């Protein structure tokens, strides 16, 4: 799940992030990821479902039990974060935020963020 330096793989992080504000099906996760990353990250079916498989195994996400119908009146599988998944996402975000703060202190970014 985590690569050797302790960080989540980008695909895993993006999936967790996409599910942070509600349940989504695969295509919606892919779309959300592309939107959040400004088109920089495009999840292929293999990467997406390979990661979903591992996240399911590790209990970080689960399949939603609510029956949802998509626009084409078709049953689709929706996924949502588990409590553990949310904790991992929070933890990872905090870690990244700490890194950004450290980087800023070293003036890695040319201009300080106005915020």
């Amino acid at each position: 799940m985590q690569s050797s330096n302790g960080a989540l793989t980008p695909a895993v992080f993006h999936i967790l992030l996409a599910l942070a504000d509600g349940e989504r099906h695969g295509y919606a996760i892919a779309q959300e990821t592309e939107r959040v990353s400004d088109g920089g990250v495009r999840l292929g079916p293999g990467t997406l479902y390979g990661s979903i498989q591992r996240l399911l195994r590790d209990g970080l996400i689960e399949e939603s039990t609510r029956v949802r119908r998509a626009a084409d009146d078709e049953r689709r599988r929706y996924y949502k974060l588990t409590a553990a998944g949310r904790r991992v996402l929070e933890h990872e975000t905090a870690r990244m935020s700490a890194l950004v703060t450290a980087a800023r202190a070293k003036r890695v970014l040319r201009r300080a963020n106005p915020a």
Partner: protein
Amino acid sequence: MTRSRHRSRAERIYGALLVVYPAAFRAAHGEEMARLAGELDADRLRRGESAARFWLRLLADLAGTAISARAAAARAAAHRYSDPSAHLDYAGDGDVMDTLLQDIRYAVRTLRARPAVTFVAVLTLALGIGANTAIYSVVNAVLFRPLPYPAADRLAMIFTSTTSSKQGPVDYPTFLDWRDRSRSLEGLAIARPISVNLTGTDAPDRLVGNFVSASFFPLFGAHAALGRLFTDAETTVAGAQPVAVLSYEVWKTRFGGERSVLGRTIVLNAKPMTVIGVAEAKFQAPFGSAEVYLPVPLYNRSGLERGNGSMFAFGRLKPGVTVDAARIEMRALAKQSEQEYPKTNAGVGADLMPLHEQLVGQIKPALVTLLAAVGVVLVIACFNVANLQLARAAARRTEMSVRAALGASRRRLVRQLLTESVMISVVGGALGLVIATLSMKILTAAIPSNVQLFAPLAIDGRVLTFAFVITVATGLLFGLAPAVQSSRTNLHDVLRVRGARGGSLFGRVALRDVFVVAQIALSMVLLVSAGLLARSLISLQHVRPGFDPENVLTMEFRLPPAKYSTPQQISDFMQHALAEMRRVPGVTSVSMVRAVPFSGNFGATPYEVEGRPALRPADAPSTQVNAAADGYFTTMRIPLVAGRDFDSRDARDGTPVVIVNQTLAGKEWPTSSPLGGRVRAVGDSVWRTVVGVVGDVKHGSVADTPEPQIYTAYAQDVSTFSTVAARVSHDALTFGPALRAAIWSVDRDQPVWKIRTIEFLMERNLGQSRFTVKLVAAFAVLALVLAGVGIYGVMSYAVSQRTQEVGIRMALGARGIEVVRMIVGRGIMLALVAVALGVVTALAATRVLSAQLFGVSHSDPLTFGTVAVILASVAAIAAYVPARRAARVDPMVALRHE
């Protein structure tokens, strides 16, 4: 509910590819993944991104994740089963993918153990597959890719047909009849491409014009980028308006791409025209795009008359109508016109041809030849790699026997070996794609100018599929024989007599020899074809065109009819211009003619001879007609055989005269002198007296058979279009500016274009032959190299397998030279058998080629002989190298060799 949902093509393809994942993973996520692939593909389409890139990314994603999913599944399985034999050779009933992965891992190890052999195999296939993919991309672009028009497969061209010409031009009134009466065609359009003069700008210039009906644009799916296109009313004779539509390119280059061009007046053929629109950039008309489009009624008055056909007609078959049905209807309509207008239409039929066929018909045989040639190269490459595999398989017999003894089924062993082959071919195929991509530019440049490429050559989905299919097919093809042979292990044989080896240096015929023979025979076919094509190109280049093409410069101009409206004005202009051009230093002689040979311009008409029974226009013999000023024959060095050249007597008011060529003279006056006889074009009112006979001239192409030719005297047969022919002292092209300036000194507004030498025109004419020869020759050389490598490989393998035997012979007193003779003799013998077979095959193959040959027989003994000698020499050299090595062997070392 799931079943009823429509699954897109992308979804179905991806669904099929999912087989690479472990079964459990597939069951859990397969359906959703395929669906996602379909949705991503739909996104891609909306964004207008390339399919190739999308699928490449998808496949990379698939491959990468499948491997980790497999690894995870294998780890999980390893926990479940403690029996290690479960991972060894279980025959076929396990998960297909697990076995395959096992085979692949094993294959990688084996292939890496012999890098040199693997490298040669991969390179051989890469060349074969690369060449095939490259040629296929041309075939795809020219023959398979649909034309860029709506419902392009239903577009057709309509012609008039007479006894002398099957595909004649159409006149405007007949076109209107067809348009109104046809039930099988819709959207009929007519076009008359012809140059027009643009004046009133900085320098007078010529534009490629096209006089069209309003229906021309919708028929070919063209829209306006700016302003509008023609309305139907604007292009009727009654409602014709002086309006013009510019091509996108001309708008950008000449009019600065400014929107203000709309409504602007430009002077075309000395008439003011209002620009009403610009065609969109992507619009490409068949047979080349025009720079400016004008309403067809503005084409000169006489060109609109019945019986005076000069236009191209197009239409679209209505849905469900076959080409034959439309053809039958057009013939019936032509019959109707014959009855209604017997004077002009008697004997004039109609014919119809699918547009695509009309556009590619000429190049098709050449492309088919190339595809066949390059296919043969691939087969040779396959034989080569098959031989390498055979050699390897022989070396691995012990290994195979051991695996068989441990319980591997024969099927399993064959599959293992095939996996290796396919892996070699896949790597070769990938490299081949790189080669093909790199050769795109060279190929594009080599494509002859008479082929209209609507889109650049590209590796698109279809080409990729082709490359993939031939890659896998070659892998199976060259892998099958060795795999079957080496898996046919007999436990007794091999295990008992360890090291029994399948060499064939001195004795029985092995499969390997058969392969080598096949390779050489196939190379022979290619080399002979290349030789014949090259010889016919050489004969084409040496055809005497009937004139001396050296140091002749030509240039064209068309006088605007509005400015030069009377024959006298035109004739005066010609006289002045000729006088000015004669003054240019270095010009030996200069004259004018309507259409210079090899320019692509020509005139043909049915003719009749005075005193002979009258014929219907459609049955009359046809002649090329050309108008020539005095001095034309001297300038071109066309020999005057009898009578006299044109001179000052042949002025406008003189007796109408013509000069005919020898073919016409011999045909019409076989026993008497043609001088004094009179001829005329059918429909012409004046008889013209023959005053001279000149030699035949090749006009359209050097391969032309001699045709009747008539030259009228320029002053008596004026037209606004004319070509200058000037013989100069040296470097013809450098005289262009001076000669053009001479014309400008007569009329500053007169554009002059196509300043070219006749030698250039003749070279261009050979473009297609050159294209075929170059490529077939390249493939033949490739084939020769591959065959050479093949012979070398087989001989050196045989030698290495028999080192021990050679050692014994040498120890017993055989001299090195005898060993060399023995081995080289064997190589030459194989080559001779192959050449004999090759001659038979080549004779059959080149028969198909004969339509593309000129001046050389398809069984030309010189070509066959030369090729046979070349092949035998290559075989001898390829055998000599390993033979030398064998002869240098130290007997003691050889005897210990195992």
